[in-house]
């Protein structure tokens, strides 16, 4: 795989990978929770604060113009990366805020009693709770597409009264990759009034999105899972839909004209960006996208797929280890491997791995409905990204063997 990516060079770009934890080099295998930041992103944020900082869209000063230019350039860069129009890109804090924006502004205006909302058992809480609560507010039906053998049930039939279908591009637990275009198409054929939202949190860091051709109406993703700073998130929506949507948050920046007893709204995307935005982290997101483009998403995906396959096969070879999700050689997957060791709680697996400076996630992964479906309380999860190595996979596997030894299982 080194023939695809120069891992040594990439690792040098990430200062934190030199961190020592318990006197050992950090093996960071928790990329599905959040990713580390390359120096280029840290520098971009620092440069904005050091050299171009002012409030945006307001003053006529040179600095304010530079700040506005940096913010709007970031928007253009994000839009180009996911094949969307800049005015369709709304900056938020994260995926959760993006989905709440859609659930409140679009959902409150469009979903009525008796309508159906369709989500999936694969969704993490950020794409589940906002819709569950919208359904409760509106007395709408809430339907789940079930998960069978790690995949969404392809035989699911959308109720004709489906108003909203929200689903994940990729599972943050199972690594399953869903075909956005075919699911969006299926939903709209079976339920012509359905609006489709894709939760891109676990997909955007790994795959080239083509939102204009995706068949979806909304897509939400977080910057922090794709090398960008925490606090940078995106809601993409089709312009016609955004234009017709009422605002979510009211206040400065989102208005056109304010009178004593009434106001009119700015055009999109400003209509949905009330108050001073998080400009520096949008600039950081733009730098992260440049880094991903330079490195090549397809190469990154091939690399993480190879590592996940190696990890899954070696873990499955250990007696008592169960993995969840698609088979190791599946192509429609991301670089996530979820597993459990018989008789050992995932937390204990996580703690023992941490003692060897191997950082994974253990718990319910903000996906308690899916945990219920898998009939487990928690799983351990290793998730790989562009800077991970075969050696780190070996440290993971050795750590799991150590878990078995300590627990005598």
């Amino acid at each position: 795989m080194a023939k695809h990516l120069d891992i040594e060079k990439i690792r040098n770009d990430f200062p934190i990978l030199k961190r020592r934890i318990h006197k050992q080099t950090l093996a960071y295998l928790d990329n599905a929770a959040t990713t580390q930041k390359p120096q280029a992103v840290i520098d971009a944020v620092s440069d904005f604060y050091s050299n171009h900082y002012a409030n945006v869209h307001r003053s006529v000063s040179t600095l304010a113009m530079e700040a506005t230019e940096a913010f709007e350039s970031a928007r253009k860069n994000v839009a180009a990366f996911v094949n969307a129009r800049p005015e369709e890109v709304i900056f938020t804090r994260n995926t959760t805020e993006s989905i709440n924006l859609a659930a409140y502004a679009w959902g409150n205006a469009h979903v009525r009693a008796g309508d159906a909302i369709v989500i999936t058992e694969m969704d993490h809480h950020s794409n589940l709770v906002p819709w569950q609560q919208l359904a409760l507010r509106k007395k709408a039906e809430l339907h789940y597409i079930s998960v069978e053998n790690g995949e969404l049930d392809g035989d699911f039939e959308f109720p004709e009264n489906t108003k909203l279908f929200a689903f994940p591009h990729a599972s943050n637990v199972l690594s399953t990759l869903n075909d956005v275009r075919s699911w969006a198409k299926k939903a709209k054929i079976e339920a012509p009034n359905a609006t489709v939202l894709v939760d891109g949190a676990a997909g955007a860091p790994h795959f080239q999105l083509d939102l204009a051709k995706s068949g979806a109406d909304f897509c939400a993703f977080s910057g922090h899972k794709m090398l960008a700073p925490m606090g940078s998130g995106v809601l993409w929506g089709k312009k016609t839909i955004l234009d017709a949507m009422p605002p979510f948050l009211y206040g400065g920046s989102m208005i056109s004209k304010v009178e004593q007893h009434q106001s009119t709204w700015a055009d999109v995307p400003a209509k949905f960006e009330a108050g001073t935005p998080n400009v520096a982290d949008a600039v950081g997101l733009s730098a992260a996208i440049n880094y991903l483009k330079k490195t090549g998403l397809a190469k990154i995906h091939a690399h993480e797929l190879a590592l996940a396959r190696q990890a899954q096969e070696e873990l499955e070879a250990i007696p008592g280890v169960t993995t969840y999700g698609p088979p190791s050689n599946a192509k429609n997957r991301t670089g996530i491997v979820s597993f459990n060791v018989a008789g050992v709680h995932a937390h204990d697996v996580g703690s023992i791995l941490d003692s060897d400076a191997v950082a994974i996630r253990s718990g319910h992964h903000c996906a308690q409905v899916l945990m219920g479906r898998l009939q487990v309380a928690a799983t351990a999860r290793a998730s790989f990204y562009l800077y991970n190595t075969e050696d780190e996979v070996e440290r993971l596997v050795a750590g799991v063997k150590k878990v078995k030894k300590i627990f005598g299982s």
Partner: protein
Amino acid sequence: MTNAMYREQILEHYKHPLNQGTLEKPDARHHDLNPLCGDEIEVFLKIENKKEKNGKGKRDESGKTKPNDAGNAIIADIKFTSQGCAISTAAASLLTESVKGKTLDEVKALTRDDVFALLGVPVSAARVKCALLSLKAIKSAAYAYLGEKLDEKRD
């Protein structure tokens, strides 16, 4: 170091916890969970009035202790069911065993350090909540029995 947490005693209590199970008609029970990790515990308490020096118990008709001296009532038996890691299960095993025969006032006075002392291993910061889940559940049950509410900041 993390691995110091996994001493033989902890693993033994994890694999073979004391007081695991339920009590029929408990005098107090409490279900608690750690939302960060999904660990769950439910405790069941059998509470009896402390015997007077002459050896006679003081109970009302229902067999329950009168509220005014309820703080002196003792935990006659305790069971728990849980779904959790080695640290939380071992803590529940050790703590349930140690509160048997204690008065509710003594249970109310238990602190996190008492649990750490029972465990006898260094508990890493990330696992403190696991270690203390059973303490919170047992104290909540005791407080509820007394008609009081656990103040997490204070307790």
